[in-house]
């Protein structure tokens, strides 16, 4: 399988009055065609910044300092703004944005927003044709095509989420990035949306990055998993492998923090302390202040990702390095 997206040592910092926020600090991962990767981490760990960096739509105070993002062999970091717009955004990579509730502009009709995406990239398509395509997309995501002329406020949360997914599919992208697609929705709707995404992936052979803080969502919809902590990927590899044998203490704790509703009652496990401030991250391994296995070296030297067993499992932890 060819590699679709290859992110290498990506570094994105934000400049603030108090200093640099090291939101993404040397992140690498790769996605093959047709693969789905889950990017998991707590709030503020830099997940969303990774996405904004890939699409190069960072706010003005954010900058990509280092690294490469190869998409179909082309380094996006070096592409001009115009090339990004014409070739990559939406056509190559599209985005289902966090919390979906706000991803639709409240003052335009949903159909117009979908048509806009189509006509930006295919200027020859008439507005009518674009709307017709929009109706098809509506059907695809299980919405009533007649509601294409509604405003976002006339939709419920679940419907908005579906409409956003329809919009993301408008230009037949190779890669779909879904940023917390189901948070802020009720359990049942959440399940429906996830089910829809899974289905679409199958029928359209999409690659996908699913960003979430909820490991259990990733567990059922992805092939690969990258666990982020404080701007770095601490564990990365095949989903099943990691779930079977998580190596990084953070991953271990995180998996235990999500109780299984069907399992026997067991005490809940937590990680002491709280996530670090990315303005002043701890030295060495960024997890060391909260790690139950912290050693001397952990606060001094930053662990490098090490491949374990197969190529499909990397861990950045001194515990593993020693082994």
């Amino acid at each position, binding site marked *: 399988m060819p590699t679709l997206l290859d992110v290498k040592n990506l570094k994105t910092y934000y400049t603030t009055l108090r200093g640099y926020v090291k939101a993404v600090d040397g992140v690498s991962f790769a996605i093959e065609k047709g693969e789905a990767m889950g990017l998991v981490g707590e709030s503020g760990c830099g997940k969303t910044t990774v996405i904004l960096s890939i699409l190069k739509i960072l706010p003005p105070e954010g900058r990509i300092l280092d690294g490469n993002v190869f998409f179909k062999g082309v380094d996006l970091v070096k592409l001009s703004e115009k090339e990004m717009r014409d070739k990559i955004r939406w056509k190559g990579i599209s985005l289902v944005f966090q919390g979906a509730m706000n991803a639709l502009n409240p003052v335009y009709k949903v159909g117009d927003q979908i048509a806009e995406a189509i006509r930006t990239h295919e200027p020859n398509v008439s507005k009518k044709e674009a709307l017709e395509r929009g109706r098809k997309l509506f059907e695809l995501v299980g919405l009533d095509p007649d509601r294409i002329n509604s405003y976002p406020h006339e939709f419920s949360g679940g419907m908005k989420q579906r409409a956003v997914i329809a919009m993301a599919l408008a230009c037949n992208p190779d890669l779909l990035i879904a940023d917390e697609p189901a948070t802020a929705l009720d359990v049942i709707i959440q399940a429906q949306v996830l089910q829809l995404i899974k289905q679409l992936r199958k029928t359209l052979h999409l690659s996908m990055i699913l960003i979430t803080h909820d490991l259990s969502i990733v567990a059922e919809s992805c092939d690969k998993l990258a666990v982020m902590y404080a701007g770095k990927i601490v564990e990365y590899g095949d989903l099943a492998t990691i779930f079977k044998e998580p190596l990084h203490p953070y991953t271990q704790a995180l*998996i235990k923090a999500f109780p299984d*509703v069907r399992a026997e009652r067991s005490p*809940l496990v937590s990680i002491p302390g709280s996530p670090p401030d990315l303005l002043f991250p701890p030295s060495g391994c960024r997890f060391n202040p909260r790690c139950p296995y912290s050693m001397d070296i952990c606060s001094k030297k930053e662990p490098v990702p090490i491949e374990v067993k197969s190529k499909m499992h990397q861990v950045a932890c001194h515990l593993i390095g020693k082994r």
Partner: protein
Amino acid sequence: MTETILKVEKLKKWFPITRGLLRSLFSRRELYVRAVDEIDFEIKEREIFGLVGESGSGKTTTGRMLVRLIEPTSGKILYRGKDIVSMSDEEFKPLRKKLQMIFQDPYESLNPKMTVFDILAEPLRVQNVAHGDEIYERVCKILEDVELTPPQEFLQRYPHELSGGQRQRVATGRALILNPEFIVADEPVSMLDVSIRAEVLNLMLQLSETHGIAFLYITHDLALARHLCDTIAVMYLGKIMELASADSLIKEPLHPYTKALLAAVPVPDPTSKRAEVTIKGEIPSPVNPPSGCRFHTRCPQFIGEICKKETPSLVEIGSHHYVACHLYR
């Protein structure tokens, strides 16, 4: 035999919809949000009672009525046999010591302009139960109880100097400082990072044992409820659909809605394949809830006219397992 602390009978809350002056002049018909519609349950000493439901199911309204933040439209709330609904504010004030609440968002529930000491001392001052040094001692004691040690280090801090988990501990401490018998915990961890949720919940569990406190734990997360609660009640559109001990509810769910909810909970295990979501559509508006069984519009096991017409009542099926569904009659 443990005693019942709180018994709720036919509790109902309909919020009138406020409309413009003009519209109410023209139309006499009042509209209501039927947030809670005649529910019954009881909570025993030291019990952790889970109230589970989607947003708009009325679970938060129920919790607030129990501590009298909201006046019920009708119904009774009996605290050790005494109805607190009919009490005046004066009569109820001493009882507030016994009934406390922990709020959802620790970023919202602590006054940003008050120090931890003032926040924790406030209940003592308002209730006038301690003075001077005694306040100080009790505050320190409670900080130790919620594992914010050493207490002196936290006394003069402001909420913004605390992490989310620490804030929720302070909020817990505030609820505990009056030695209550019963605490309503309204989604106390939904705003916290996953890695620290468990520590707050574990603290609550531990306190319920050491201090002998009963909890009403309100959540939308069935998985958490299952691991925390003794009894779980499932609410849908202001009605209790099923009520049973946590184990029996999870293992043998009876109501189609409970089954759907359970199926919708994602499982953190890539090997297990969960069932397809069979339930369609979204929760209807509580302003105009469906007639009969409120779930009938989405029910995969809809059995006909009776579901549309008759509201099923909560009946006991197994031992301490209640369900409101026409399938079980």
